[in-house]
């Protein structure tokens, strides 16, 4: 059976070049970078080269990069580390309603522990208003965190403008760039950020590796204590093969980004338009055009439920994801779709296709061939579709 992976926002395969480089560091150059012998030193050199590669990709200095075990840990370190370091300056924090759980849950934890939190709303496309940010900033605001691009609906936030504002007001500005890295330009200076989170497994690097950019001069209280690795910001034997893989993945992404973005945008629009053409009662979620990530398609298919769609797609080899309540363990539909003002029923039938490096027009066309049949079958089973048609008929 044909297998079409369209869930690159969840995770990506590791690029073969990256994987084979990692192999060398697993089995041959396996030294601990803290060791002074040559096994250690060759690992140290490669680790520092990776730091340069990651820094170079986002316009940072190598010394401003702290490696972590992933995007989630980097988000936690940024938020908890800065909140603790600057608590004497103030205890007001700001974020948005559409952040990843790694940000939201972390802020919620602080809100329960003596901090005050403002969660900014978004419009029906998932976009933040710069004015809204401006109004939310108070004299005691110490930290503002806004994601660069949303993982569910691909909405790209006006981060550079918000960063300018934050700098004016003396508020530390953190950006979660996990989804934007490798898809649109991410530059810490252009975006006016103080801290920025990236994750390796979203850009064809290995899972379990991420990094936090921390602008020189910003203080952070560490979250993990021990041997004092990563300039005491993050203790623990460094995951050298993983970090080296991440560095290589950054190098490859930097070289390929322009071409890939153009290709992905084409596939994205072909898929989105094709779905709208072939299936009735479908709604696009998130902005269209330049404010949307090149690889994100998110639609709500009315009268059917997301998990059923996913399972049916999986049976014909197509891997996608959904913001449906039933697919999330928590049984609440996606907080992002709800924040965009979408009713529960419609969020329920949401479907995300996230395209990647390997995808082709044939992949897209295969989805366009299969999806309508699946939707039809599920709608035939759906009491809601029935009802809608009866009501429409009665008019």
């Amino acid at each position, binding site marked *: 059976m044909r297998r079409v992976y369209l869930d690159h926002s969840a995770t990506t395969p590791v690029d073969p070049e990256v994987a084979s480089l990692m192999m060398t560091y697993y089995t041959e150059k396996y030294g601990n970078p803290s060791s002074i012998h040559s096994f250690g030193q060759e690992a140290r050199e490669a680790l520092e080269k990776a730091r340069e590669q990651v820094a170079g990709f986002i316009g940072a200095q190598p010394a401003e990069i702290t490696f972590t075990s992933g995007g989630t840990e980097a988000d936690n370190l940024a938020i908890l580390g800065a909140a603790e370091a600057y608590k004497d300056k103030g205890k007001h924090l700001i974020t948005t309603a559409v952040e990843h759980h790694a940000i939201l849950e972390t802020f919620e934890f602080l809100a329960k522990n003596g901090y005050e939190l403002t969660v900014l709303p978004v419009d029906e496309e998932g976009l933040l208003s710069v004015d809204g940010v401006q109004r939310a900033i108070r004299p005691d605001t110490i930290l503002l965190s806004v994601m660069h691009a949303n993982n569910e609906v691909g909405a790209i936030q006006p981060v550079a403008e918000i960063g300018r504002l934050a700098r004016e007001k003396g508020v530390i500005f953190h950006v979660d760039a996990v989804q934007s890295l490798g898809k649109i330009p991410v530059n810490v200076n252009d975006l006016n950020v103080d801290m920025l989170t990236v994750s390796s497994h979203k850009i064809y690097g290995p899972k379990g590796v991420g990094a936090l950019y921390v602008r020189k001069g910003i203080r952070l209280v560490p979250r993990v204590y021990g041997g004092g690795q990563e300039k005491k910001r993050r203790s623990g034997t460094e995951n050298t093969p993983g970090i080296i893989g991440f560095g290589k993945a950054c190098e490859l992404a930097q070289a390929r980004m322009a071409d890939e973005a153009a290709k992905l945008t084409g596939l994205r629009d072909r898929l989105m338009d094709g779905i709208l053409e072939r299936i009735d009662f479908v709604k696009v979620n998130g902005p269209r055009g330049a404010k949307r990530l090149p690889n994100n398609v998110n639609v709500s298919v009315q009268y059917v439920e997301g998990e*059923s769609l996913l399972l049916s797609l999986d049976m014909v080899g197509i891997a996608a994801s959904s913001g449906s309540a039933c697919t999330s363990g928590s*049984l609440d539909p996606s907080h992002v779709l709800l924040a965009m003002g979408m009713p529960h029923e419609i969020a329920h039938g949401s479907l995300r296709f996230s395209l990647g490096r390997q995808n082709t027009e044939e992949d897209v066309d295969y989805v366009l061939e299969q999806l309508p049949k699946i939707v039809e079958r599920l709608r035939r089973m*759906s009491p809601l579709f029935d009802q809608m048609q009866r009501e429409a008929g009665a008019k």
Partner: protein
Amino acid sequence: MYTEKVMDHFTNPRNVGEIPDADGVGEVGNPKCGDIMRIYLDIEGDTIKDVKFKTFGCGAAVATSSMVTEMVKGKTITEALDISNAAVAEALGGLPPNKLHCSNLAADALHAAIKDYYDKQEKAKG
């Protein structure tokens, strides 16, 4: 995630559809995730002659709907009333822990349809 049996009932659901002028119709919504299931019964004497369902919900919801219709077809009303949520889940070889609530949908809809049948009987008697 799901057992083979669940996937089988999800892929080839038995008894999908509706029964025009059904003797009993039960509809329940799942308060946890917002899903909906409707069951139609055709009853002769004490026996469930035919049963159909329509469901808007996850794989487990569809599979439990299908399973419950298969379990009650040809059974007496008393036997049908004995079918519990747990029995449906068990008949499917089990459900993931966070999907156990979905089986409530199926048995509840069945029991609602039987209640509707009794209500209609009452009404007919005047």
